[in-house]
């Protein structure tokens, strides 16, 4: 980890004065922050702080009323989720969003979707390129399975797996997209200590081995502080802190938000 600091590159993703409201309820107001390439960037905050909304905005699920997102130098306001996915941003979900009718393998394979090229006719006949493609991508997926240590479950329907493993499959599916930026929505929620440690290790390994930029939401502050390079703190839809873990820890507003003093 010693050489991590100098691996971190330029700003890859910038959120600029984004506001989002549902009906009359403001979920985000005027939030700005940036993410540098190869870093682990955490967004923390108490429940209802707007963390998930923030990810949903980045990822095109919600369209903000105001503000823009700049990604790889391109500015966008309204992008559909699949366009975001095509541009190399993947994510996992807080509440499980796996395809529960499919096996672990198929779930992860579906993450390779964007890279699959053969047309429907070739697939129907399963000849030549279509078959080769299936096999090539299977190999990639197997490496991810190996990486996340879920070999024993590859043919199991995801619904039958315990929660912690399902979270791992969710991560695997996102990794299968070979993203440049990986958004993780509370990857450690509902896990026991051991599972959390495993997940931390996987996240760091991903960041380290593939150079993937990680944006991570977490409710539990202590876990995040160990693994992130920089932290954004949200509270009631507003940004109240931004900086290195140590800076954030020392920030009075953050402390108050977590202790509930100011409310």
């Amino acid at each position: 980890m010693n050489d991590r600091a100098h691996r971190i590159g330029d700003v890859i993703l910038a959120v600029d004065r984004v506001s989002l409201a549902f009906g009359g309820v403001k979920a985000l107001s005027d939030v700005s922050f940036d993410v540098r390439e190869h870093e682990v960037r955490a967004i923390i905050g108490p429940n209802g702080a707007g963390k998930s909304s923030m990810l949903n905005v980045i990822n095109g699920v919600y369209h903000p009323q105001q503000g823009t997102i700049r990604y790889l130098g391109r500015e966008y306001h309204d992008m559909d989720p699949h366009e975001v996915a095509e541009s190399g941003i993947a994510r996992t979900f807080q509440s499980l969003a796996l395809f529960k009718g499919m096996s672990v393998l198929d779930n992860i394979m579906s993450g390779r979707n964007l890279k699959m090229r053969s047309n429907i006719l070739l697939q129907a006949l399963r000849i030549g390129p279509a078959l080769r493609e299936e096999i090539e991508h299977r190999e990639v997926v197997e490496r991810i399975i190996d990486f996340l240590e879920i070999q024993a479950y590859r043919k199991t329907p995801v619904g039958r797996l315990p929660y912690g493993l399902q979270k791992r499959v969710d991560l695997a599916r996102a990794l299968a997209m070979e993203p440049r930026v990986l958004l993780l929505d509370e990857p450690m929620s509902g896990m026991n200590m051991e599972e959390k440690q495993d997940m931390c290790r996987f996240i760091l390994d991903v960041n380290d081995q593939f150079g993937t930029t990680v944006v991570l939401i977490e409710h539990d502050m202590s876990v995040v502080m160990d693994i992130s390079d920089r932290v954004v703190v949200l509270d009631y839809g507003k940004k109240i802190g931004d900086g290195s873990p140590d800076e954030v820890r020392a920030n009075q507003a953050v402390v108050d938000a977590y202790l509930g003093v100011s409310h």
Partner: protein
Amino acid sequence: MMKNVIKKNGPVLTLGVVLLAGLVAPFADRSTTAGFYVEVLLGGLMAGVLYSLVALGFALIFKASGVFNFAQGAMVLFAALAVARLAEQMPLWAAIPLAMVIMVALAWLIERLVLRPLVNQEAVALLMATLGVSYFLDGFGQTVWGSDIYSIELGIPKEPVMILESLFQGGILVNKEDFVAAIVAAALMVALALFFQKTVTGRALRAVADDHQAAQSIGIPLNRIWVIVWSVAGFVALVAGVIWGSKLGVQFSISQVALKALPVVILGGFTSVTGAIVGGLIIGVGEKMAEVFLGPVLVKAFDLAGGGIENWFAYMLALLFLLVRPEGLFGEKHIDRV
């Protein structure tokens, strides 16, 4: 400001313009007299009232339990059959309450045997379950009550009367029975509205409709509410069945005609009682208008073997509406949270 209003309600305004155009268009043809036009309009409204009735049953159930009740038509048929066959054995005033008892029993059974085991299932699974219920009721009704065509005699004269002769040239031909039916239906709706607004049960029903979990947490028993809702839906079906049955005769096709309620609720918005009523009227009128005024034009233009466009008109209308405003006229917009 004005611009904003137009932008926001654009789809609704557009539809309004289209409907208005539809209503006015017939006058382009010189041969249409005002009297005939009003006659068609009234005819459409009458049919619309019946659609509204069935749609009301639909909307009630959907609002309270999230079930898209495909069996509403079968319930109408079942109720009509029950009344018709019971009336052969006893006077009508006894047959109708007895049929009502049967409908409540049916509602209870459906809740018990179908809905409760399927609670928390996806909406589509529930829809298919009601399809099953619909099939079962069709078969069961005809097994129990017989499958011939029966009549319900309400004692209202069926012959048409001429009204408003002074206002329109040639007067307007109105079916007395339709007239009574419309009044009954309207009365029923008022009664239901009062039931929902004024009674404790009604309020509980609305609470359940707004939020299942919240309702449950303040101690409203969901299962009992559902039985009540299905009973009310059974009651509405009974009224619709009796009116319809007396008009067309009680036969299998009633259950199919009731499929018209679907476009009605789409148009009105699934969760809205008002929507069911307004939607029913719009569909009723639109359909009649289209059949009478648009039909011949189509027949001529495309060399058709007869018009019959009312079979699909309502659906196409609903479909177009869906594309423009999926939540319907009075429905609530739905946001997916992730």
